[in-house]
């Protein structure tokens, strides 16, 4: 850790940097708890998932596939593919995570999109910022998931209040920042086409997994 004095940041600087962002993951975690409960995952599984996976979009993907009657295998594959980008994020911060092997294993779990982005905001990656931000976001995420499962349990008919459309809108809003390049746009369009074409013929969730083939466009130079 950075114990040296001077301008090097501390963990609490990371916590402070993430404070303005915390309401986002908090509300997001609440809605994950609601969806997980509506999907019949059960409150305990939802909270354990938030504590171990700690990655919003993959968790939503898994819960929504289970909710629409998809198989466990489809939910796992979709969530794993969504989280594969963490390999790329993780590699960029490999040299700043301190400690022995096991400590680094634990510490690296604090990598999420927001903590990663904050840690690199000064042009180089700073571990205390990543750790502080990650800790705050982790607490917000797990705590709000638990709260959300209570709310979800109280909802009688999620369909009537348009919850299904809300989750489509959620994925859409998450998607938006990714489609800034032509290649991403083409890959996204291809994925939509594959999904629609396969929906009548395969079980729910399987079309999603097939659509992942669109990422092979990345092999083109």
């Amino acid at each position, binding site marked *: 850790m950075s114990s040296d004095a001077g301008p090097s940041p501390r963990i609490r600087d990371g916590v402070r940097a993430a404070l303005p962002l915390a309401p986002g993951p908090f*509300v997001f975690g609440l809605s994950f708890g609601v969806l997980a409960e509506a999907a019949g995952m059960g409150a305990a599984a939802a909270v354990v998932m938030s504590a171990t996976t700690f990655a919003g979009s*993959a968790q939503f993907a898994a819960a929504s596939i289970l909710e629409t009657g998809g198989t466990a295998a489809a939910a796992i594959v979709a*969530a794993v593919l969504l989280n594969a980008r963490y390999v790329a994020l993780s590699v960029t911060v490999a040299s700043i995570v301190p400690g022995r092997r096991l400590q680094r294993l634990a510490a690296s779990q604090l990598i999420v999109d927001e903590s990663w982005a904050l840690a690199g905001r000064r042009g180089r990656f700073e571990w205390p910022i990543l750790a502080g931000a990650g800790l705050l976001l982790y607490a917000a995420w797990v705590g709000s998931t638990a709260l959300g499962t209570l709310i979800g349990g109280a909802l009688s008919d999620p369909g009537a209040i348009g*919850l299904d459309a809300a989750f489509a809108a959620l994925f859409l809003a998450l998607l938006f920042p990714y489609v800034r390049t032509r290649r991403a746009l083409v890959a996204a369009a291809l*994925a939509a086409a594959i999904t629609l074409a396969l929906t009548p013929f395969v079980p729910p969730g399987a079309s999603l997994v097939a*659509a992942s083939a669109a990422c092979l466009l990345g092999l083109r130079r």
Partner: protein
Amino acid sequence: MTDAWVVVAAVGAVTVVFKAAGPVFLGRRALPRRAQSVVELLAPVMLTALVTTQTFGGEREVVVDARVPGVAAAALAVVLWRRLPIIAAMALAAAVTALARLAG
């Protein structure tokens, strides 16, 4: 074990390994460039597939129902106002869909 717990265990275990990939397994080595481009496309591709199934998915059929105006309203709002909080987009979609269901 129920389906939900199988999913929780498998996704959790794989994600732990993914997040540790750099600091624990790869060290300072970088991903090959083409692998990097494929990985970068995974998120937009999977999110698009999710939007598609959540909007049009039915029991082995493509369905156009009250979800479509809700999602369309959210899409328009996100495009028009880039800094729209996600929860606002979700609330808009839910409200429009619920109204469409009441009307239909």
